[in-house]
């Protein structure tokens, strides 16, 4: 069995990490924090050129022709770097929404009752009519809440909604229903029920990959701090209470890694659901433990730890939270 990264996969991961360090280093990260809601279009096109969005499109359609495992590695790096923007929605729109694959078109998507990056997007998938901006907890992810009550007339606003499908073209200021919900198009838009509609497994998997990136990064940050920070005349990492927090960070991240990578290979919805549950836990609890290891510094705006925690919270809400995954696995157990 060869359940480990191939040389090509390791090179891909190293290449993406290098690209993101160069194009979105710490300075760019903090600049983005200071300018919430602004999407760096130059960076976005650079991501497009690097194949970030066209990664899984067949080569004959101008894509890179790679598979889910490679996409998972790329999204893990994006999560690690706290790369802002509707990466997942644009990646999933590549090949469907013109310009998405190249990074020319920024695509947002309605996910249950939330939309990330609506104002910055050129196109939105799903019905975002009546969406109201939230004061997002995450300075790197602007959020809208879809609040349209059922039966209310859709109010055209913001970017133009595009229906899915390869021939999709912008159809004017009328919202189209999201894919997988076959209601006739028209002025009445039905937001998908966040519990009833099963989330797209690929979206779930790539979210898990981003969470895995956070889980790995917060473990590194905690260990770096525990080595450097001195109290009582020695590094705090020499104290077992701190050591054990760090060990648990690694255990959660590595267990999630095995689950996420395996799900990328099998593409089985139950494996993907499991990967998501583990990765959500590894990211959210990991970021909290990392914050704890940082002590008072962890509670400041200057330290990056809170950015990881807040982003992990945002991702953990996708697809209606963890209930879907647990239910899917329970159903598989009982089936």
């Amino acid at each position, binding site marked *: 069995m060869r359940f480990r990264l191939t040389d090509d996969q390791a090179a891909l991961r190293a290449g993406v990490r290098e690209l993101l360090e160069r194009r979105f280093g710490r300075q760019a990260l903090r600049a983005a924090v200071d300018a919430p809601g602004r999407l760096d279009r130059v960076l976005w096109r650079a991501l497009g050129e690097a194949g970030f969005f066209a990664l899984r499109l067949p080569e004959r359609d101008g894509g890179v022709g790679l598979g889910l495992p490679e996409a998972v590695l790329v999204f893990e790096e994006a999560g690690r770097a706290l790369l802002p923007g509707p990466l997942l929605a644009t990646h999933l729109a590549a090949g469907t929404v013109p310009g998405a694959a190249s990074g020319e078109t920024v695509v947002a998507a309605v996910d249950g009752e939330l939309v990330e990056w609506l104002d910055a997007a050129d196109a939105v998938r799903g019905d975002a009519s009546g969406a109201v901006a939230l004061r997002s907890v995450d300075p790197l992810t602007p959020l809208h809440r879809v609040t349209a009550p059922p039966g209310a007339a859709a109010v055209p606003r913001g970017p133009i909604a595009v229906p899915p499908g390869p021939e999709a073209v912008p159809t004017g200021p009328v919202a189209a229903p999201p894919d997988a919900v076959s209601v006739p198009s028209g002025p009445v838009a039905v937001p998908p029920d966040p519990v009833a509609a099963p989330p797209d497994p690929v979206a779930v998997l790539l979210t898990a990959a981003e969470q895995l990136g956070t889980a790995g990064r917060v473990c590194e940050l905690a260990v770096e701090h525990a080595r450097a920070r001195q109290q009582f005349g020695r590094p705090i990492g020499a104290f077992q209470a701190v050591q*054990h927090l760090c060990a648990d960070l690694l255990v959660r991240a590595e*267990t999630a890694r*095995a689950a996420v990578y395996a799900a990328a290979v099998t593409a089985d919805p139950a494996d993907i659901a499991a*990967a998501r549950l583990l990765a959500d836990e590894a990211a959210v609890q990991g970021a909290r433990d990392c914050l704890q290891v940082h002590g008072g510094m962890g509670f400041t705006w200057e330290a990056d730890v809170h950015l990881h925690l807040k982003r992990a919270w945002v991702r953990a809400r996708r697809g209606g939270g963890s209930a879907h995954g647990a239910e899917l696995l329970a159903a598989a157990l009982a089936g």
Partner: protein
Amino acid sequence: MDLSYAPEEEEFRARLREWLAEVLPTLPGKPSPDDWPGRRAYDLGWQRMLYDAGYAGVHWDASPTLRLIFLEETEKAGAPYVGANFVGLLHAGPTIAAEGTPGQRARWLPPILRGEQVWCQGFSEPDAGSDLASLRTRARRDGDDYVVTGSKIWTSHAEVADWCELLVRTDPAAPRHRGITWLAMPMDAEGVTVRPLRTLAGSPEFAEVFLDEVRVPVANRVGEENDGWRVTQVTLSFERGTAFVGEVVACRRVLRELARTAREDGRWGEPELRRRLGRLDAEFRALWRLTQWNVSEAEASGGVPGAGGSVFKLRYSHARQELYEAAAEVLGPDCLDLDRPWVLDRLSSLSYTIAAGTSQIQRTIVAERILGLPRGR
């Protein structure tokens, strides 16, 4: 990343399945837990069947992937686990194979493989548990013998063992890791007294072994005098490799049984219980993948189990306890009835965060050896 198996690995699996389907119906009934001679005969008999079919050395000379397949398939088929052969096959045997002389290998290994002799482990002492290197059982050289005095604890299968892999202190003046020697002690030697220890589950799983001026020939020493600590490390890394493969398979089966029971009892409508079982399924799916990841790492590094073993053990021992807590929830008031399934398993699961290195020791190992944090104390 590839989760598929090579054609020769699939062929190994198919042949093993066929053989298991053929021989398992011929097995005698399982002896009761209190019947030590019966357990010994049963476990040795199973090892003999493995030997005759060519599977006896699978823990030693097969690739990590074949070992994984062997443990997965035998568990799925409901075959016996190593039982009384545990120390011989997974501790003492590999140590002798790696560190013994040709004569020692010829003397001790064939009887282990053929299912003729049982080994037990004399490492821990009442005052040397997690801090194994502080062990005090003393061995004094007298001519061609060592004379051993002291006591060992948590020794499984001591009542029916032929041999004991024993760690003794041969140089009390040396730094503690450098004064330890590895000996093979015959359990019928004069001065060996075995006292059974009952576990909290009520079963006589362990024993204390008292050693009073026991004479062990110098020829029974594996490795150099005072080099026993290094010799032991070979053994311990073996234990943390693929040791829990079969158990993860078994836990996933228990989880399916819990779901079925909850449904039969009309409790599947409780979202909290349902999702709890769903989350546990995620946990054991992940542990299975982590096993495959670790096996692939071992395959790439030439068969040596890596640091992934400590990560796995920490997560698995906790998950196993969570599984049986969920079982108690499914059982309701029956969780207090020892005659119900899973109740004894819940009790024995309590040992998992303690045995073979407590979770606290494992976290320290992860922090210092994998994450490179400064050594504490």
